[in-house]
Structure formats: C-alpha cells, structure tokens
C-alpha cells in the first residue's frame, strides 16, 4: 500500500536547487532514508511531515494532497520527531507525553479516560513507567528519546517520521531505540520513515530503503538490496564490503 506519492518535487534554498524533479512513492512498513550528508534526506522527511513545503510539485499522503490536510487531522494521522529534540524546561515526562493528545483535544478540550489510557499505554510500551514523574531534562539521552517516541505513540498516529533518532546515542541506546520502534510499528500495524546514517542499523531494523544522492533516488527497494557493494559504492561513493554475520550481514568500508 502507498503512504506517500511525490510527483516532480523541487526544493530550492537561496542560491541553489536542493531537490530537482524527484518522483517517488513510499509504502507501508519501516522505510529507512539513507544517503550522504547533503543528499537532502532530512529535507525530504520534513516535506513529508509538512514541516516545509516543496517549491514545485505536490505530495500526497493517504491519497490526499498535503495542502488539503487540516493541521490537526494531519497530526492525528502522522507524527514527526525532529532531529534535535528541544529542551523541555520544567516538563515532567508524563506531561510531555500528554502533549501528544493535543491533536485530539486541542487547546480547550479536557483529557478523558480514553486519553489517559493511551498515554499510559505509550509509557508502558516504551518502558518508562518508573520515569513518568521525572523532569524530562534530567533523563538520559536514550530515555529522553524513548520519551519523545512515547509522545508520538500517544498521538495515535498511523505514520511516524523520525529524523536521525539515534544520532546522539551510544550503540546500546541505538539498538534499544530502534528495537522499540520496530516492535511498536509491528505490534500496532503502523508505518515509519526513519532517516538513518548507519547502514547496518537500517539493514537490521527496517523493511525498505530509499537511498538519496543530491536529491535523486539512487536505490529503492527491500532493505536487503543495500547489502551489495556496487549499490553501496553508488550511494556513498566509497568502496564497501559486505561481511556475512548474524543476525544480518554487516557492511564495512574498505
């Protein structure tokens, strides 16, 4: 099934065209968005999240143009996590996660039992029961990232968009956060698009891959297709080898 359909997208920044005529469709499941620095993967993700808008072209989500979505309806359906999560002065973890109910309750509506059930479920799913009354700013990096993911889950969205969710984490927390993401997506039957730098993490935790190079798709398909030295050379411009390993083969630059 198709989540996003992009037709002939261009994106301009002052002085240059970052994306030129990109057409693409993104399906369900977990899709990794990979590519070199400056390959416009973050820009693409922000356009999918309607955080920025293409200079030319249209993007459809669930069969409807992004411009035609109402802001709150869109947020009920799709949740977005920016690359750098902001400081949360004075917010407790449960209060942060409760903000995920904003698309449903707005500025005035009271949170009902159903909202609290969903908030508690999100906290439980992310394994944060014992942290719920702590200040978000005092949590560790991995816990904080799980907290933000819990907020996205409380939002009740069918699609999660995450921009480099593991870039500031050590390897243990990387596995923890991506594992949580994969389990959640599977259990809830939802979809996710994740910008990732690490090919091995993409191979291990994602279903599909879209590789970008200066605004052009260089590879799209099953994530296994990444395990090919020729494809990797095309994506990253450095020769890489694929080493057989468990549970998935790993890639390593030569």
């Amino acid at each position: 099934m198709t989540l996003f359909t992009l037709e002939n997208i261009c994106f301009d920044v002052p002085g240059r065209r970052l994306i030129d005529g990109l057409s693409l469709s993104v399906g369900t499941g977990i899709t990794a968005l990979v590519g070199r620095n400056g390959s416009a993967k973050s820009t693409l993700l922000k356009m999918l999240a309607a955080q920025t808008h293409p200079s030319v072209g249209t993007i459809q989500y669930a069969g409807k143009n992004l411009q035609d979505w109402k802001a709150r309806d869109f947020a009920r359906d799709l949740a977005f996590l920016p690359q750098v999560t902001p400081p949360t002065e004075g917010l407790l973890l449960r209060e942060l996660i409760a903000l995920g109910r904003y698309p449903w309750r707005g500025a005035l509506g009271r949170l009902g039992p159903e909202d609290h059930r969903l908030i508690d479920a999100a906290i439980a799913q992310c394994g944060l029961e014992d942290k719920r009354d702590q200040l978000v700013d005092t949590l560790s990096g991995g816990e904080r990232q799980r907290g933000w993911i819990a907020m996205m889950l409380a939002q009740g969205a069918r699609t999660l968009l995450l921009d480099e969710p593991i870039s500031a984490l050590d390897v243990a927390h990387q596995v923890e956060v991506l594992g949580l993401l994969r389990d959640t997506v599977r259990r809830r039957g939802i979809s996710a698009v994740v910008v990732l730098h690490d090919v091995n993490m993409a191979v291990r935790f994602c279903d599909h891959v879209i590789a970008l190079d200066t605004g052009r798709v260089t590879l799209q398909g099953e994530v296994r297709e990444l395990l090919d030295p020729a494809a990797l050379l095309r994506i990253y411009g450095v020769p890489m080898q694929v080493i057989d390993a468990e549970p998935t083969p790993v890639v390593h630059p030569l």
Partner: protein
Amino acid sequence: MIRLFFVAALSSIALWGLAALSALPLSQWASPFANPATLLPEQIFFAFGLMPRAGIALLIGGLLGLSGALMQAVLRNPLADPTTLGVASGAQLALVGATLLWPEALALGRGPVALFGGAVTAGLVMALGARRGFAPVTVTICGMLVGMLASAISTALTLGQGHYLLSLVIWNGGALSQDSWHGVFRLMATLVLGGVAAALLARPLVVLSLGGATAKALGAQVGLTRFAALSLAVILSGMVSAEVGLVGFVGLAAPALVRRLGARSVTQVLLWSPLAGALLLSVSDSALMALAALGGPEMPTGALTGLIGGPVLIALLPKLRNIVPPETERSDLIAPRATHPWKRVAAIVCVTLILTALSLLGGRGPDGWGIISGDIAATFLPLRATAILAAASAGALLALSGAVLQRLTANPMAAPEVLGVTGGAALGYAATLFLFSVPSPFTLAFGSSTGAAVTLIILSAYAMRSDMAPARLLLAGLAVGAFASALLAAVMASGDPRAWSLLGWLAGSASRASVSGALALSVMAVVGLGASLLVSRWFDILPLGAGVARGVGLPLGRVRLGLVLGAGLATGAASVLVGPVSFIGLMAPHIARSLGLVRPASFLAASWCLGVLLMTVAAFGARTASYPYDLPLGLFATLIGAPWLFVALLGRRHS
C-alpha cells in the same frame, strides 16, 4: 572594495563641498592656519566650523568602526557594537548625571566621566554575558536592556531637574557641529594610539576567533586578550561619546559592510572597518549638511545613523544562524519546580491584595504617614483608587505580555520592551502630539496604540517570513526600538516645546489616568488573563519549537501572529500609562519562574499577579517618595526592577 571606498570618499567630498559653497563662495574659502582676526565671520565659521566638522566625522567613524570590529572579534558576535552593548548609553548617563548632579567632575574634561560610565555598563553586560557563555543573541539583548535602563535614568534625571537642558538633549542626539580644531586633535591622537594597540592585539584576536577552548589549547592568554581588547574598544567609544554624544550603529555597520565586501579574517576586518566607518559617517554627515544647506531640516547626525542602523541590524539577522552554535543560547540550569504551584499562586494573590489595600488606605499626607480618613478620604480615595487600578492593570498587562512572549520565544530575556512595541507606541504618541494642535487623552491613547500596532505588524511580517527563529524576532524588535529612539532623539533635538510633553510621557505617571481609562485597562487585563489561561496548553507546546508544534498540529503561523498581536496591544495600552520602559514585563515572569511555577497556567497567573504587585508598589513609591510631588511611575518601576533583575540574572546561572 577599494573602488567603492573611493566613490564614497568622492561623494562625501562633493556633498561637503555643496554645503560649504552654499555657506561661502569658493573665492573666500579660508585656510585654518589664517589669523582669525583677519577673517570675516563667515570665513571663521568655514575654517573653524565646517572644516573641522569634516575631519571629526571621519575620525569618529574610524574610531567607532575600530571599536565595533574589536568588540565583534572578542565576543565572536556579529551584533556587538558600542550601541548594542549599552556602552554608549552608559557614557551618556554618566555625562548627564555629572552635568546635573556633580558639575565639578566635568572640570577634568568629559572624557574620564564618559569612560567611567561606559566601563561600568560594559562590565555589567560582560558579567551578564559570561553567565551565558557569551551567547551572541543573549549578550546583545542584555546590552540593549542595560542601555535602555541607562537611557531611562538619563531621561528621568533630565526631567527631574525640571529644566529643559537643551545642550544636553542636543548632545544626546549626536551632533557633530564644531567650533574649533581641538576635538579633531584629541580624537586623532586617540585613533592613532588605538590603532597601534589594535595592531598589537590583532594576532591574539585571530587565535581567539577559534573559540576560547581552542585558543587556550594554542597557549593564548584568553582572559588577558579579551580584557585588553574590550577595554580598548570601550575607551575608543567612550572618547567618541565624550566628544559628540551618541552616534549609534556605525560600529555595527562598518564591520558588517567590510565583511560583505569580502574581508574574511579578523585582521582584515580590523584593518578595513575604521576606514569603512570613517567613510560611512562622513557621507552621512556631509549629506545632512548638504540637505540643511539646501533648506532641509537640521538633524543631529546620531539620529541619522540610528535610522541606518536599525535596518542594518535586521539585515544582519539571517546571517546569524551560520555563526552561532545553537546550544550556546540555551539556559543550562534545570529550573526548580514547585510541588504545589497553586498554593504559591494563592500566596502571591494574598500578598498582592494586602499590599494593594495598604497602598490604597495608607500613605503620606500633610500630617506625615498614616491611614487616610474623614473628609480627605471622601475626596481623595476615589482618585487614589483610580490611579491604583490603572497602575495595577498596566502592570498585569505588561507582565502577561512578558510571560506570553517568553513562552512563545523560549527565551527568558524576552520582554515587551525588547519587542520594540513601546518604541513604536512612543513614536505614535509623538506623531499625535505633532499632528493635532490640542490632542485629547483619547486621541493620544489611540495614537500610541496605532504606533504599537504598526510596529507589531512589521514584526509579524518578519516573523511570518523567516520561520521566526525566536531569538531573531527579539533582535528585530530591538532594531525597531533603536530606530524609534533615534527618531525620538531627533524630535527632542528639534527644541520644539511639544518635546517637553513627550519627555514627560516617556517617564509615565499613574495620576493622569481617568476613571474610564482605568476601567478599560482593567477589563483588558482580566480578559487577557482569561484568554491566555484558556489556551494555556499552547504555552506547553510553543517552547518546544516549531518542529514539535507543527508535528502535533498547532496552526503555528496563526497562533504566533495572534499572540504577538495580543502582547503588542496589551503593551501599547499599558505604556500609555507607564511610559515605554518599566521592566515589569521581564521581571514578573522571572520571579514566577524562580518560585518554581513552570507549568503554563500557574506561570501565567502568577506573572499576572506579580505584575499587579510590582506596579502597585511602584505606584505607591512614586506617590509618596517625594510627597507632595508625583514621581514618574515608569521610572520608579524601572528603578525597583532593574537592579533586582540584574542580581537575579547574575546569580541564577552557574555553568
């Protein structure tokens, strides 16, 4: 770059020649070395007025350009300059204070007095900046706040003396008129010595431009270099202040200009900035002279540079993103959080009610301190109640605007004053004064609100255009404020009697409030509180930034526009009463935060209430301190608030 400078120099000479020719035909031009006894009065004016003026414009521009380049290099802040760091206003305050209170001090010359004032404000701003890692935007905001405080006290001193000190006001406007060559010689010596010192500091500054930690690793004396370069910059700008007064923004524009023209390294910027500054000011001054010669209005040069500086500051803002590492603007302390916030709010409400009642009934009468009673009560209580209601409502409105803006921008230094709204309101007030022969209070209120609204529309347009990095909105507001105060300085310097009424308004007073005005303000304050509490969930989401806010479906553009407009209207209405600067809008939210009220609803309610409390106390002080005369309300609020604020800011952050 050289070709452009050449063109600028030629046009400056041409404009100056135009002004000089209209004063005196070419055949009569006299040499400055001629014996004055043999000259005609016009020739004396030419040789000892017009010619040194051309020289002084070049020198001052050069000094300010060098001073600005030094400050920008030390602080790694493209927005640093003697105006934005408050140094110029500090020098101004010292000179005004010395003229009015201690004229003997001026026997030493204006230089040392101006230097003292500049050094004190620079020290204060640096101490504040050091707490926040010299983050550029924060340092600039601190500097401009310190500058505003100094200007407010200067205004109050001028007003308090009761004389219209024309010379002082003209000096404030930065007029370059000369009557001898002495100023030129003094400044030339300063520029030569300053240039040598800057050349000695150039290499350490290059190393420092890599950042404090890297510079230390390279073996540089970081603290010493910073201190020496900043002292030099303060001395240079202090000498300028002593000679001609406030000439704003040349120090900001000159380095920006040479960077735009291709100067990359610190050394290049230090070398070219004085030249660019000299030419910039020379062209501006010659243009003003030519304009006056052709029958245009006489304007102080400082007012003109202010008019140029505001837009330059705004134009620089988009470039800031690449230079500033994002983390440096963040606060680094985990805020305290009260367990029972509403109990604290209730306590604040109780204290406020008690103090308001006391200030209503108690006070100073013909028989000294006491409770008002009997006949006097029947006559005066309604008047006093009106004044207190008006002051309290104005305080509440300012505090609420401050709280809203701090949440909106996620910056604890955001304040209604910083938004430039009050500057816009002052301009509107001034325009009304000059447009209507006998303006009614209502017309004046309408005029200042219109001024505030226009400022807000400009700001909102800016906010909508560039995704409003909140810090940049604040700086845009500061630029608008600088623009407004430059215009006001020009109005004052015109010597028009209506300027007196403007000066009085700038200080603010509660006793002017009418019953209907006070009631309108209080209705606004209550409605404002109710509305902001209704949407308090927004204030949870907004500090998390644009990405998250859009992510949860907040219609960000409309919310921001609505909040900025609301805050601006509230500020404009309140500043009709209390004048443009009071710091209540900055202080009240700060106190609320330091009491651990971080959740939006309790934070907004407590800020509102603290605004009432502070303004009531200020009104009481203004009423009683020099009974039977009312002191300016805004001034009193500033004097209570500002020191407390600086202590709080200095003490709060420990990195």
